[in-house]
């Protein structure tokens, strides 16, 4: 039997009928066609399915859709600007060559959104810890960290400039 759940997905209010045992990963991919949400392990080990739930990065494969009732979900599909332009985080990933096979990329970008959303300045080692829930087999994390460092720095500077 399907149950009704309400949530905001990438800014759009949704009413959905889902299986109550369904993971948010499956709902986003199979019912809403948000295929940026990737499945790599289904048990919360790899981080490829990371999305934001009320601004917090979670592994959507181990998050039941029913728990999202009334919450706001964001995936990379929701990051682009009104004219299709890339967000600064996405731009940093492109320009720093942080993308290879691209399978871990959407999840990492969502964690990056959470991290820069704090407005705090993190150093490279702190960033290593903050993204350690994301496995990447292609890059050795070097250029992902370059992109993260750059974006954290940019946002921190902007926030501070606004305050002064």
């Amino acid at each position, binding site marked *: 039997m399907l149950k009704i759940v309400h949530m905001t997905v990438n800014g759009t209010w949704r009413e959905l009928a889902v299986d109550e045992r369904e993971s948010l990963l499956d709902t986003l991919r199979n019912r809403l066609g948000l295929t940026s949400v990737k*499945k790599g392990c289904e048990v919360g*080990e790899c981080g490829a399915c990371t999305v934001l739930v009320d601004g917090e990065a979670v592994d959507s494969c181990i998050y039941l859709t029913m728990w999202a009732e009334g919450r706001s979900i964001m*995936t990379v599909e929701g990051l682009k600007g009104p004219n299709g332009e890339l967000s600064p985080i996405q731009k940093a990933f492109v320009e720093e*060559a942080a993308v290879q096979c691209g399978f871990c990329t959407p999840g990492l970008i969502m964690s990056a959104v959470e991290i820069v959303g704090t407005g705090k300045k993190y150093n490279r080692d702190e960033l290593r810890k903050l993204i350690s829930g994301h*496995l990447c087999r292609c890059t050795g994390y070097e250029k992902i960290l370059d992109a993260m460092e750059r974006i954290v720095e940019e946002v921190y500077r902007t926030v501070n400039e606004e305050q002064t």
Partner: protein
Amino acid sequence: MGVVGKEMQRVDAWGKVTGEAKYSADLEPRDIYHGKVVHSTIANGLVKSFDLEEALKVPGVIKIVTCFDVPDCQFPTAGHPWSVEEKHQDICDRKILNQRVRIYGDDIAAVIATDEVAAARAARLVKAEYEEYEPIVTVEAAMREGATPLHPDIRKDNVIVHSHMTMGPSDFTFEEGLRQAKEQYGEENLVLVEADYDTPRISHCHLELPVSWAYVDVNGKVTITSSTQIPHIVRRCTAQALGIDIGKIRIIKPYIGGGFGNKQDVLYEPLNAFLTMAVGGHPVRLEISREETICSTRTRHAILGRCKGAATKDGKLLARKLDAYANNGGYASHGHAICANCGNVFKDLYQDELGCEVDCSTVYTSSPTAGAMRAYGIPQADWFAECLTDDLAEKIGMDPCDFRLKNCMGEGFVDPANGIAFHSYGLKQCIERGRERICWDEKRKAYANQTGPVRRGVGMAIFCYKTGVYPISLETASVRMVLNQDGSLQLCMGATEIGQGADTVFSQMAAEATGLTFDRVYVVSTQDTDTTPFDTGAYASRQTYVSGMACKKCGQVLRERILEYAAYMLNYAETDLAKTIHGGTVRQAAGRMREALGLSAEDQITAEMLDIVENQVVVTGGAPKLFDVAVVAETSVYSLDRSQHITAEVTNHCKDNTFASGCCFVDVEVDMPLGLVHVKKIINVHDSGILINPKLAEGQVEGGMSMGLGYGLSEEMLVDEKTGRVLNDNLLDYKIPTAMDVPDLDVEFIQLEDPTGPYGNKSLGEPPAIPVAPAIRNAILHATGVHMNVTPMTAQRLTAAFKAQSLI
């Protein structure tokens, strides 16, 4: 060169950061059925019968097929071009589902259901009755006298292939070498090292699982969309597995989330094809879980290397020997080729004055199947060679870097067995550069006499690696280019993008070869065997070299065709073509050209007088500019006088190969009581020819180094010797490096133009993973004096070794 050598942004980056790049599972149609493989719960035996009653009762189950239903066709799975010589053909040793079980987790049945949960539930309820045999998990057990052969129809015992090779005299033996050495140099002037160096079975851990979906189209063609590195080979093997014609199979390969060699094997596509055929062609998806991927797809071979080495006390390497034993698991896959490759590089890497003897055995066991993984036997070869080298240098009392410079393969090296040569040689320059960057000489001295529980050390390892598989196997690649009316082009490669950046570097090459700008090249990323020209795929670090040459040649042909048409337009500028929309432009251009070259109105303009520079047709030499290629492109399509769709398709049958090389230097801190190794600094220096895209090249090296760190410090599949069952089949217990495990990675290149590469380039994709583990091992040796002969060097192994040496 123009765009080749520049740090162009990846052509697929935009799609990948927006989630719009589609991978296999992202393209599935609605109402697809779900397949689920039923795996054996024994490692060795025979399926006697099934009880499907409970499984069939699960709501949503459509059908269950078993090993008794599949075609009686044994097929190969290795991602090799099919050899037309029977003795070189890949071993056909499995069926789509196997009644004869050879590994724990063998594929014995499959469920098709309307949803994933039903499929998984039913799969668990399938009951198999077995005739069970003793699992033969280790090489030792499999080679024991009287051991049950796992494939009696193919091999009388469990040895898949045994190969013997030598460097020096063809009948060279290490014992004979030692005898000569004693005679020549005197026993008192020799050092001898004898040791077993061991490597683990590891898992590729591409982030995207092996996934495919299949249906039968309106023409009866079995169409499979799959996450594979080798679409054309998957097509052939699927045809072999089903016993049907190759034209009846179509493989589509969209973006893939990594492969690293696991997807250079035909994994589950034949089963997926069989499943859709079993339900009247309805689409069926088959996604292999992470646990299944680790246990039941492929692994890197665990190879044991029994090594001997002899050198003079003044540091001249005299002779070496390797006895390699590769655990191939239950099926041959690539196996026979990999251990031989391992042996080859072991003997090539150093110049033994008297000779080198290598003996390789690749053995069937009832344990997970080993196949291709990044660098194809060479990480193991390098572990053996580079542990041995440091152990010899230590015994002599010589600096291991000096010892390597004195004895490593030199400029002009040609492998006498297969003719593969260094057409460009940068190995020694790499070593010198790495030595300088890590501050080798200072640190070797500074770390010489340490005491206390935490110690520092520096270590190094070198390597060489071929570029492609010629002459061992066929090297062929095809490319098609199609000119659009606006003067842009579609680039259609048979070669595949698997995350390494192939689409981007081929786009750069296409721009370079045609004279069009990078933004005018539209690479078709998806391979579809119905429309894509043939290429064997992404493996052997071959694509930029073999397929890149095809791309270059194809671009040159397209350019000639554009110019030939441009010449035609210019010659008829005053007459027929004046009617076209660009008549005025062409007439003026013809005038400028005739004036510049002093040609009369009657003189013929030929294609040789013309060139394309940054989208402009120009007079050879660059000036004057005549008109945009778009003028030619549009006219050629719509001309009422001579309509010609300008395209080119070229096959590059590559009959060349060249060695790439390089090294890794590391500086480590070893915390002996904790058994922890902190890599403080690490640098890889690569001799990979001219880089097509330095930024992407750097990314390749960093990823490989990270994989090497895992190989050295944390990754190992644990297989229970009693049951053949994998004990750590998930990403929590199987440890690949996280961002916290990888230090900052330093990368340098010695860029020397290789005359055989399309743009001076040679292999780069796989090499970075090779030298890291032995470099760490040698740094630990320097720090502590302890010889870690088994990788990965985990805390458990390290503390045990330090205890044994009374260091803690």
